[in-house]
């Protein structure tokens, strides 16, 4: 197991390296740079000033030199400084990552719990009205883009019903309270979760249907166990196993989705930061974002593998 993890981590190094090279190239291929992004017509900058600022930021060097400098810093645990405000990228990301993780975590968890529950119910009621309605709802769920879902949620729950705040992470200026935070979390998390709940539901239904056909379910029934025991103890455990993969694959898309949802709901996470950094050509922040998300996705993949081996005793890595 340990050697499997080590091997995976070892293999992820070149992958990470490749990711950074590509993204660095992309970031530098963008038209304009951080210095140009800061210019506005009201404060036109002289060419000397632009050159000076480029020099300060190291933007006057060859791209590969810039990359080597950057990667050198990273290897020393330093993600560099934002071109825009000079703050340490590590600090900025560290400040915002928890917010994004809160949003994504709650969304993923909600999607998982809701989707799995409905999927299992749907499977247990196969070919009944419940199943058909849930399946149809699931299809509709995966047909509505999450940004649109976000708009609809804001409209219904924030503007019309006035039940929930329309944006932000907590009421500005109030002392942080978990309840307040959760009220703000409901809509963006729901916007992210509903689409994915529909996906989880589809997989949970398929998984459960497959499990229901397994002989061990018949064995359990033949033992005279209660239907609830059979479904939960024997069925669900096994049906969950393939969902682990779905869980792992959902993560990268969740980062993408959070960019959109954070914009709609003014959720101050790294998605919002990323959009700004692209506009500002703040390549240290872009790189920081990509590196962190890549690492999280990789760790999540590892966690997926681990979860597999926990859920399924047959799986052992070596």
């Amino acid at each position: 197991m340990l050697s499997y993890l080590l091997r995976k981590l070892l293999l992820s190094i070149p992958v990470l390296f490749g990711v950074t090279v590509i993204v660095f190239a992309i970031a530098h291929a963008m038209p304009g740079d951080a210095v140009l992004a800061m210019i506005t017509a009201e404060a036109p900058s002289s060419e000397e000033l632009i050159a000076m600022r480029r020099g300060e930021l190291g933007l006057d060097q060859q791209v590969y030199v810039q990359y080597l400098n950057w990667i050198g810093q990273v290897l020393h645990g330093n993600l560099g400084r934002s071109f825009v405000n000079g703050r340490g990228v590590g600090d900025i990301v560290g400040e915002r990552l928890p917010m994004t993780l809160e949003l994504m975590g709650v969304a993923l968890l909600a999607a998982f719990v809701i989707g799995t529950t409905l999927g299992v119910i749907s499977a247990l009621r196969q070919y009944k009205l419940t199943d058909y309605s849930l399946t149809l709802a699931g299809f509709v769920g995966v047909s509505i883009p999450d940004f649109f879902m976000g708009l609809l949620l804001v409209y219904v729950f924030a503007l019309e019903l006035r039940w929930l705040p329309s944006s932000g992470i907590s009421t500005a200026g109030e002392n942080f309270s978990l309840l307040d935070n959760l009220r703000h979390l409901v809509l963006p998390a729901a916007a992210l979760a509903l689409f994915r709940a529909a996906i989880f539901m589809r997989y949970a239904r398929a998984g459960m249907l497959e499990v229901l056909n397994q002989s061990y379910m018949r064995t359990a029934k033949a033992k005279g166990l209660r239907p609830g025991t059979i479904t939960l103890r024997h069925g669900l455990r096994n049906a969950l196993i393939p969902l682990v993969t779905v869980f792992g694959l959902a993560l990268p898309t969740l980062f993408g989705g959070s960019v959109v949802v954070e914009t709609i709901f003014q959720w101050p996470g790294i998605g919002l930061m990323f959009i700004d950094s692209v506009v500002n050509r703040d390549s240290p922040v872009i790189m920081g974002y990509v590196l962190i998300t890549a690492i999280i996705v990789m760790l999540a993949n590892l966690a997926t593998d681990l979860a597999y081996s926990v859920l399924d005793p047959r799986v052992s890595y070596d």
Partner: protein
Amino acid sequence: MGADMLAIDRAARAIGQQAVLSVQGLSVEFGPSGNSVYAVNDVSFELAEGESLAIVGESGSGKSVTVQTLMGLIRKPPGRVTTGRALFRGRDLLAMPDSELRRIRGRDIAMIFQDPMSSLNPVLTIGLQLTEALREHQGLPVKEAERQALDMLDLVGIANAAQRMQAFPHQFSGGQLQRIGIAMALVCKPSILIADEPTTALDVTIQAQIVELVVRLQKQLGMAIIWISHDLSLVAGFVDRVAVMYAGSIVEQAPVERLFAAPVHPYTIGLLNSIPSLNAANTRLVPIKGAPPNVTLPPTFCAFAPRCEHTVARCREAKPVLETVGAGHATACWRWRELAQAPRMPAAPIERVAAAPASQAPLLVVSGLKVHFPIRRGVLRRQVGAVRAVDGVSFEVMRGETLALVGESGCGKSTTGRAVLGLERPDEGSILFDGKDYAGATGDALKQRRRDMQMVFQNPFGSLNPRMTVGRIIGEGLRAQKIGTRASRDARVSELLALVGLREALRNRYPFELSGGQRQRVGIARALAANPKFIIADEPISALDVSIQAQIVNLLDDLKTRLGLTYLFVGHDLSMIRYLSDRVAVMYLGRIVETGSTNAVFGAPLHPYTRALLSAIPVPDPKAGGTRRRIVLGGTVPDPSRPPPGCHFHPRCPLATDICARVEPQVRDFGANGAGRHLVACHHAGEATP
């Protein structure tokens, strides 16, 4: 029903006990009405306390559906019980709500299933799975339930039971798992045990262990057994009564001796005739013609009529009901009275046409063949070991003979076959075919060999490309070898279809439109396309129904004679092998332990493993059960990546001594003069088994 129930009732009473279970007129359908599969049609039987009843039938005969219906295990929908009652101690299992039936399931009626691996939940410990029925039905506290479960594990012969309670199913071998499955079924001490083909997925030596265990436990616990099987020979040895099912109906039931001695239903007779007997070697098998029944037609006629030699118009018009033949013996056939007058067997046993005598010139000489599959582990994926699938195998196949390579699963027999054909790269050894060494050959050399040497595969479902028509599949070898023109290839395909007994019309069908037997014929035709000299048949019949097996075996036999072929037959069904092979090589854990003429090996086996293997073969003769001496091997086959030192067999060998653990036995020839060589690799070859 009706009058016939009386007959059954009498039959049950004849045994002198009270019926614990009485099934009356059970019919089960699947799917929407109007488009149904008629899985079980008007099935009635009784089971006395402590009695063992076998329900025998081929796949699709409805035997499993019948017992699963009793237990409330079929899924509704799509399943529907259309008629019938099933009285368990007077209460109708089919009429009670599931919550009530649930209290009977597992407590009074328990069940063991076919595939022990898939019928245990892979993610729960066996301790939990063993105790949950006890806790459910008897409300025992965990500790007490565990104690009782432990006792039961001891009873079924799981060593170290206390520790193994925490283990998961995948950590056990198939045989152990089936023991656990039995323990699980028996923890509540049920009065009926339903065994649904519990040994089908197991090797023959393990099968013997399990049968013995169930028989012992039945005596100890005094329960009744319904044993579902497709194998008449297997049940012959230990059940009281047999019911034969075909296409959802019981066609004949009788006490076991009577069924074997005086069967009356043409299907039962056909079934018995298609099983080779270990004793009567040279009687040609008599297969049942045709394909398995179509169960999507309403059961308004005799389902066996299309395959029956004695069909008359009435058979196609009305479904026969069970009629009493004798004490406890009933059958469902319109013509049983007439047929009972006629000779029971077809005229006279047809002598097997002897093939041209095998020459003494070897066509294939394999020596020192090793095929190892590397195991890589660790951070750097270094090779840390190897599965020694084939670990130094030598044999020769003479022109015109059939050499059978036998052994249990995992012994390396299939890998050997594939290595001979060049589908696996040997690590060591030579493969001389027609005098040329082909070991490790590639490219043209390999291509040339493949003209002369072909293979028939095991799985009739997996060995045909589902997206090719039969014609293309058969012609593939011709195209690959660029033999002939398009027209000549087409003609050849027609010829081959005729050769293997398939209608020309099937040429444009896809494999999924064919039955198992037809598919296997296609596989054979494909192998024969380029006129090979040598055929490797890798368990070609093991996936087929008994009545179809005989068809394929006869076909292979005929082709050998007609085309002058040489066969390497890889298999595990010893009775079939005895029937069709000239010489036998017995493999165990990557090595050949005994080689010799079929008669010599089967008649006077010298290696203790061969002896155990042979003794474990079920015999289709209820009387033999008592007289045959069984050598039941303990333990299971070791992991081929860590074979035991010295003789691979020594940990399980009844004759093993110190030397066996240290020294690998040399092959010695025990052949009598003129009878050919009889090679044995054993330090104690021929010594009497204790």
